């Protein structure tokens, strides 16, 4: 700035200073009150989600601490016993494996089939498709114990009359988790770009060929993720199995689709109900095993999705 007094620049400076003053009031540091209010608000929100985190940590930690003495190989190799020292998860694991084997066998064709049908062969506007969609959404919200009653009335007795066997449990659980598979499979199929399908059909392929050779292979990682999520949901379900007369005590390992069954969450449930301290330890250990399996499965599903997800 020159030493000369220049009225024009002086006016400019005053104007600039005035403008600065005015905007500073509005755009500068917020008043202290607002800063505090913001921090308090943000902290409350953070506190809330931390509470959820703490709740989960307490749940896992409490079980880990309580169950630690029994977290060893014996837990997995001992069978059912009324004496806590001899009790273990062996029969339960076999039962769960048998039941899940059949659940996988059922949900893949039915779930993927439904998803393909809804995505490829029906128009979004058709009433039939809308009805099925709404249906599936409602089924996803039905309490799980009602599926158990459904299994009692129609699968164990009634038209199918399969008795209280592994296959009955599998069918019941299949119906329970089918909406999950359908939902995820639909997302997977939907995410395949139309250009792939159109290109294939332009080359003369039928719709079915397109689906089989182009869409499905591209959607497989998503579908696999959905199957794994469904299975991990089914593994942890206890309520639907209760009305199916899962015998509380069996001396044998479930040996096939027609045999009586027990399952991991059922055995844990029985242990939880026993008041003796040793059974509480067993229950905690059993829960840790169940949680470990579930977390491993979910991580695997996420890894699968991330690894094989195609970016179009």
């Amino acid at each position, binding site marked *: 700035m020159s030493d000369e007094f220049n009225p024009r620049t002086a006016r400019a400076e005053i104007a600039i200073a005035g403008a600065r003053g005015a905007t500073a009031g509005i755009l500068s540091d917020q008043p202290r009150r607002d800063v505090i209010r913001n921090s308090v608000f943000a902290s409350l929100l953070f506190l809330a*989600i931390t509470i959820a985190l703490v709740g989960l940590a307490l749940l896992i930690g409490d079980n880990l601490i309580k169950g630690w003495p029994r977290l060893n190989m014996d837990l997995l190799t001992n069978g059912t016993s009324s004496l806590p020292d001899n009790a273990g998860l062996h029969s339960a694991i076999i039962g769960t494996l048998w039941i899940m084997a059949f659940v996988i066998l059922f949900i893949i064709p039915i779930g993927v089939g439904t998803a393909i049908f809804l995505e490829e062969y029906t128009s979004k506007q058709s009433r039939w498709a809308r009805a099925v969609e709404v249906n599936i959404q409602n089924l996803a919200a039905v309490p799980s114990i009602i599926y158990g009653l459904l299994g009692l009335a129609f699968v164990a007795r009634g038209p199918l009359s399969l008795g209280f066997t592994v296959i009955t449990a599998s069918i019941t659980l299949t119906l329970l988790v089918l909406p999950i598979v359908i939902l995820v499979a639909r997302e997977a199929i939907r995410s395949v770009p139309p250009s792939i399908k159109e290109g294939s059909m332009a080359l003369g392929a039928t719709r079915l060929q397109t689906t089989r050779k182009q869409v499905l292979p591209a959607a497989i990682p998503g579908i696999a993720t959905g199957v794994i999520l469904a299975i991990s949901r089914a593994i*942890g379900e206890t309520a639907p199995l209760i009305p199916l007369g899962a015998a509380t005590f069996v001396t044998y390992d479930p040996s096939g689709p027609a045999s009586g069954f027990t399952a991991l969450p059922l055995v844990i449930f029985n242990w939880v109900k026993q008041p003796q301290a040793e059974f509480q330890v067993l*229950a905690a250990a059993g829960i840790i095993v169940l949680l470990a399996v579930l977390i491993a499965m979910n991580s695997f599903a996420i890894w699968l999705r991330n690894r094989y997800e195609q970016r179009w």
Partner: protein
Amino acid sequence: MQASDIAASGPAALTKPRLEAASPRYGEKLVIGLLAASAAISVITTTAIVVSLLVPSVEFFGDVPIKDFLFGTDWGPTFTPPTFGVLPIVVGTLSITFWSLLFAVPIGIASALYLSEYASPRSRRFFKPILEVLAGVPTVAFGFFALVFITPQLQKIWPGFLGDGPGIFSALAGGLAIGLLIVPIIATVSEDAMSAVPNGLREGAYALGATKSKVASRVVLPAALSGVVASIVLASSRAIGETMVVLLAAGNTPNLTLNPVEPIQAMTAFIATTATGDIATGTITYKTVFAVALLLFLMTLLMNVLSIRLVRRFREVYE
């Protein structure tokens, strides 16, 4: 004769490409039929559920007047003489749901706001999996947690001025455990709704001088309201249908009370306790179980339909 007919009948007719397959592809029709059958299975399931619940219930209501069932307060269907007033167990279920929502709604909405408005990407990468893990914990673990951790802690910290603390079984213990269970439902669905709020709304508010907390609470939350309400309705439906937690921690005493420290019996607990190990078809006990199940089904169905409507609304508003 027109030009098109000449063209159609000329050499072009011999070489015009046909878009249909030369032979009807029966194999394909069969496969499509199978696919349609798969889709039908979900419809058949719903029908089966409704039928399996309705048939014994209709028989039940042939013996027991609906008014006595829905409005009676004496629940003793297995006693002699049996009484069928379902209110105590309905109130039991609603009491537990109330306490669970009291815990889960503030935590869930606040968590959703945090994740949607405040969290850094690293923070999100940490907290979202936590919520997913919480959503995946099996319910028997929650029930055990309620029984061996929540109940003793409640008894320890219960302030004297509130009267007697909870006993070994209480609606509150069950409610808190279920509350923790449903937090992920409220958090994830609300967060979806909040993310769908267009940024333009936020930017406009900032431009008008709002602070971040005001934007979050006065702009985003109201804009996402129908999604948030949908999440609460979904969570309530889940809480109403929850079995294992109430079975282990809330007791089996049909008790017409909203007092959280008292033991109650939820509808699901009644079903699970009575329907163990194949109950005989056709007995009054069997019919009662299915009548209660029908009531439960209708309650959750109603809530689910409501939440679908709300979700559709929040999606439509911004598209």
